[in-house]
């Protein structure tokens, strides 16, 4: 069911004649109780090739109240204000150490429909990569019907690839929850 702009009551209105109490009241209450939202994650490793912004192939749908789980991300089916967030854990790479142990790492919420980054968590210069890096991009703002939201990751190195860590707690996650009209 969709949200219906609430009816403006008039003196003398009769339920079922002038106003549909089901669509105007009951369905709207149900809609507000369970608004659009989805959460997806990935359950297998995925290499992030150096210098390539990579869309994470999310393949497990944790919940979805509005048919938002489309492809490897989430699609907006209902326009509104959303809280969108993600989590990407770059595995530790102890093989690199000392002065060469420098990489950039970035995770972002990307609107592939509008080709627009909605929110990023990044460390753009040299960082210590011999330890795990946990990035949590967030976005809070409007989405319109047709917006396709993806979770993307990026890293640079002198060679090789990194995989986003995948286990019970560190699986890449993307969620989008409607919070207002």
């Amino acid at each position, binding site marked *: 069911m969709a949200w219906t702009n609430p009816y403006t009551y*008039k003196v003398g*209105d009769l339920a079922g004649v002038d106003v549909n109490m089901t669509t105007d009241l009951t369905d709207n209450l149900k809609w*507000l109780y369970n608004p659009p939202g989805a959460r997806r994650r990935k359950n297998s490793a995925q290499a992030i090739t150096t210098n390539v912004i990579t869309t994470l192939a999310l393949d497990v749908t944790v919940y979805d109240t509005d048919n938002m789980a489309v492809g490897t991300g989430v699609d907006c089916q209902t326009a509104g204000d959303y809280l969108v967030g993600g989590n990407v854990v770059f595995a530790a790479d102890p093989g690199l150490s000392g002065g060469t142990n420098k990489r950039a790492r970035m995770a972002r919420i990307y609107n592939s429909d509008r080709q627009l*980054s909605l929110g990023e968590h*990044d460390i753009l210069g*040299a*960082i210590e990569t011999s330890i795990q890096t946990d990035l949590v991009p967030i976005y809070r*703002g409007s989405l319109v019907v047709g917006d396709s939201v993806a979770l993307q990751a990026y890293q640079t190195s002198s060679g090789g690839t990194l995989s986003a860590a995948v286990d019970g707690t560190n699986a890449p996650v993307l969620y989008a929850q409607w919070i207002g009209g």
Partner: protein
Amino acid sequence: MLINCRRGNTLWTDPAALQFQNGAKVGATVLNREIRDNLRFLHDPPSALATHDSNQTISKDDALSDFYVLDFSRTVKDTGEIHGGGDIGPYPATAGMRTTIAGAWLQQAIVPFDVSYLSEREIKGLQFTGGIAVVDGFHRSSHARTNSQGDARGETIPWVRIVPLPANDIRGVGALSMVEDSQVVSLVGIRQPLHGMHWLGGS
């Protein structure tokens, strides 16, 4: 009847004030106020989002207790008197977001720091009500401590929290830069700084 929030032309009215009784006639005024307007309120609750379109210089400061009050001068969204809704002088009013109703509020910020050397950067949750104060410690990106290898590093720090707040509480975002002489929160392409507040529910 308790009316404790104005959101544009929509009020939240405590439904406990409305008592339906068998055989009673319910007037249109009551239905519009307590059904229509409350539904609209819940569908489009108090919410604001703001950004800033120019760089802000963060002077070096060695004290973790100090910070620079970030301004977010351009309103992206405001359902009514939240962004810039309070006097927080000497800081610009647009640095603050005012709660218009008590309840659980989502507060979020995204602060992109430009590339620099040898710097540690943090953001802090601020409260302006009754004088400025840090109310939410410090938050920094992973490994955002001083870069011991002396390489340039930029970073974007996202921050989100949900906290119960009273009405008319004014919140803001602070930034701290240590070690280096100056730091900017910059408009780097599409990485704009953002500050938002959104009412999630009563408490």
